[in-house]
């Protein structure tokens, strides 16, 4: 039986936004089409202030070294994105402290072709994940 979207406003963690230099990790190799599907999935499940929440998941490097986070959570990804929180902010993307620390949702406003392309640019180049088994890194 379908239910209501899960409202995130009161679930947001009460914490300061990550510093501009904080690294943010997203696993995989995204395309505009993949990002659109992920944004739509989030919007099906979650709302913010009563409106569908457009967003994708990332993890900030907070409280543990990057290598530990990659080994703990991203070992199944051959490639990762590793922008800083500042780079995402410069591109106009807000980080919402959703779920359990250090998970965040990168919030989009329209999720149209232009914004999805902008998000892909903000994520930067996908790079080999040193925590992927067999990685040369």
């Amino acid at each position, binding site marked *: *039986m*379908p*239910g*209501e*979207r*899960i409202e995130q406003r009161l*679930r947001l963690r009460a914490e300061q936004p990550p510093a501009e230099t904080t690294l943010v990790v*997203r*696993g*995989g*190799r995204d395309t505009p089409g*993949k990002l659109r599907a*992920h944004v739509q*999935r*989030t919007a*099906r*499940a*979650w709302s913010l202030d009563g409106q569908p929440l457009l967003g*994708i*998941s*990332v*993890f900030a490097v907070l409280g543990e070294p990057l290598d530990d986070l990659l080994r703990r*959570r991203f*070992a*199944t*990804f*051959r490639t990762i994105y590793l922008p800083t929180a500042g780079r995402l902010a410069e591109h106009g993307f807000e980080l919402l402290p*959703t*779920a*359990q620390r250090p*998970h965040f949702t990168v919030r989009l406003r329209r999720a149209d072709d232009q914004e999805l392309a902008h998000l892909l640019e903000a994520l930067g180049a996908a790079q080999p994940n040193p925590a992927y*088994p067999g990685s040369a890194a």
Partner: protein
Amino acid sequence: MYQVDITADLNDEDETGFVWTFLDEARDPGQITPGVLVVAGDEEAAAVCQVVDLVPAGDGTIVHLRLLPGLVDEYRALVERALAS
């Protein structure tokens, strides 16, 4: 390239700490029941997961997935060893 049992963004987590996706993104939703092992993700990034529970949310049913350690290829090698005569 992987053929997954259920499409998911393996980056996604909710307040439970589990990966989540929607039941209607499964190739065979009838196979998605608590406790079973599935391959989740997409054609490029997939992982073996255990289904934790199914919860109504939004316009469908959310599936929570426990991400298991190791690569899909490692599980395949494990099974091949176990079944080798």
